[in-house]
């Protein structure tokens, strides 16, 4: 049913339709409406679940860890400082192959404190062994949750659905929220693999000495690579059943004919598409490659989609300080060594701490890379706020 609804509440309703057994979360802006929404649904009896109000994100992650290890479908949501506080548990959950689903309402990281959107938080745990899916709009954000439970439970890999804080979480948009029955048909009951249960006593979370540790990393890495198939299958099945494209590995927009290819992920692709349309009218061919699955990284798809593009520009809301663009280095790595030389891959970081990314900013970016490649640049920087002595 199509509803005009805030993104967070859409996600809450969809998550409820996925029937998690245990939910545990700790409030942090801009994630709060999601868990408040779920608390309401549990309170009203619409969702039969244990809602554990914990004293920190560290415990929220630990509660869902314990619940999942005991065979429950478990869900949590957080952002920014909360995700960083969880990070030790985040690694543990992946290492223990617990198929937990987490919503990350992407937000900047302190200091300075900022409650506004960028994607530094999920980037900070990108190497932990989780699947990370990025939503473009609220329809996709809610669809991705249904897919996330299915993907996680088929691969035994925890799955993070990233949606831009405020821009999506607090935006009212029409969202089609599938009926309970439709979700039930799509998402089978969770069949756990190894659980703590006195009927089958076993140890979960044993320690591994150097004879064994490295293989656990190899297996996790391969499992993530292999989850590509599942992510694609589940997205394709979703499209068949629900009649719309959501998720998958990558998406493209007017890319085939494009002279300049923009690569990005998350809600900013909406603005990028608008610019592409404007530029098209002006006779310029610009296209978009949108990363939906950031981990596992769609290297082959990226290569296939961009192999004929000589002018590529990566736009991202995060930075590896002292190094530069994070997504940009993933994209640069996606080309075989021999091919890199003649190809221009520019790197822009934008929108940190909620700085608006306007169409004019994007237009400037495209015009600049049309002239010459850009090694690395902050887009929309206010030069008047920067003094040489501070650096």
């Amino acid at each position, binding site marked *: 049913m199509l509803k005009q609804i805030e993104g967070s509440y859409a996600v809450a309703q969809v998550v409820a339709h996925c029937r998690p057994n245990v939910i545990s979360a700790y409030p942090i802006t801009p994630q709060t409406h999601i868990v408040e929404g779920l608390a309401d649904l549990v309170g009203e009896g619409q969702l039969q679940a244990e809602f554990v109000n914990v*004293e920190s994100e560290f415990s929220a992650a630990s509660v869902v860890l314990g619940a999942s290890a005991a065979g429950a479908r478990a869900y949590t949501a957080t952002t920014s400082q909360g995700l960083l506080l969880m990070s030790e548990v985040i690694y543990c959950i992946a290492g223990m192959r617990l198929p937990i689903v987490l919503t990350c309402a992407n937000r900047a990281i302190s200091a300075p404190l900022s409650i506004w959107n960028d994607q530094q938080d999920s980037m900070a745990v990108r190497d932990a062994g989780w699947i990370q899916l990025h939503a473009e709009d609220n329809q996709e954000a809610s669809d991705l949750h249904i897919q996330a439970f299915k993907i996680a439970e088929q691969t035994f890999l925890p799955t993070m659905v990233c949606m831009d804080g405020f821009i999506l979480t607090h935006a009212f948009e029409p969202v089609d929220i599938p009926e309970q029955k439709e979700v039930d048909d799509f998402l089978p009951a969770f069949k756990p693999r190894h659980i*703590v249960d006195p009927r089958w006593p076993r140890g979960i979370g044993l320690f591994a*000495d150097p004879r064994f540790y490295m293989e656990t990393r190899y297996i996790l890495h391969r499992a993530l690579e292999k989850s590509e198939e599942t992510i694609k299958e589940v997205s394709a099945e979703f499209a068949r059943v629900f009649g719309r494209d959501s998720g998958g590995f990558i998406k493209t927009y007017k890319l085939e004919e494009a002279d300049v290819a923009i690569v990005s992920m998350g809600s900013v692709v909406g603005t990028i598409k608008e610019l592409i349309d404007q530029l098209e009218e002006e006779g310029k061919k610009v296209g978009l490659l949108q990363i939906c699955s950031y981990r596992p990284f769609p290297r082959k798809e990226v290569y296939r989609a961009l192999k004929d593009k000589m002018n590529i520009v990566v736009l991202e809301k995060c930075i590896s300080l002292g190094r530069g663009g994070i997504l940009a280095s993933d994209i640069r790595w996606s080309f075989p060594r021999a091919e890199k030389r003649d190809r221009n891959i520019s790197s822009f970081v934008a929108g940190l701490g909620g700085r608006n990314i306007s169409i004019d900013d994007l237009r400037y970016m495209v015009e600049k890379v049309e002239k010459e490649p850009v090694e690395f640049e902050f887009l929309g920087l206010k030069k008047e706020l920067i003094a040489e002595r501070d650096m």
Partner: protein
Amino acid sequence: MEKSQYLEGVEKKDLFAHGHRACGGCGQALAARLVADAAGENTIACVATGCLEVFSSPYPDPSWRIPFLHSLFENAAAVASGVEAAYKALGKGPVNIIAQGGDGSTADIGFQSISGMFERGHNVLYVCYDNEAYMNTGVQRSSFTPLGARTTTTPTGNKTRKKNMPMIAADHGIPYVATATIDDFRDLQQKIKKALAIEGPKYIHILAPCPLGWGHHGELTVEVCRLAKDTGLFPIYEIVDGKVTNARKIPVKVPVEEYLKVQGRFKHLFKRGVPTEEVAEIQEIANQNIERFNL
């Protein structure tokens, strides 16, 4: 006491025992075994990082015959909360859920998650194996390290008194708190059984000497516990619904010197066999306990 009499009524099921790698005379290994055997097969152990976890759960041969779950150093109580929530949500159980950790994970780094578990009222028993320092990482001070004790991070002796965790636990309003040591198997196991029969969060604090860290001979582990009790330094009691009960009367009170002298960690408190002022201060702590609990 006759040995047979001493072991009378003590559960021995070997649910935790096989091939663990603890040091000879390890108080924690014995305590963990008594806890598991008292709790029985229908039990899930959620264990924090620390000596117990390390000596009992190397892949591929853990020593547990009950389900064992370990994730991190500071979250055993939260993980146990999650297991309990799952059992409730899935309509499974009843099952005994026992979160277990050392003094470091209990008093320091995991303090917040334990407080949360107590406050939320989970049906979980938390057992603290108190060896009065971070043993797993090489005998560093914790907030349960007693006054005067030498550790690798208090080389001149610890300057503070021990945090009083049983009272802190009781002040959360939980229905059952108890202290125990490994010199009285029956008492320890009865407390475990009693706790598990009560709905809600429970806390049991077990003194578990560490020969390596305390500097006593392995065969003295049980004797050291007896001295801790009989000096008044480690009072044995229960707190049921907020009221202290069953405080164990000391048959013959022993001066703290007797307890301190058998342990290397207190050696510096005696100069050529003569006790320093700090010993008097420690005696004062014992006296306060004796008065407070009417031991």
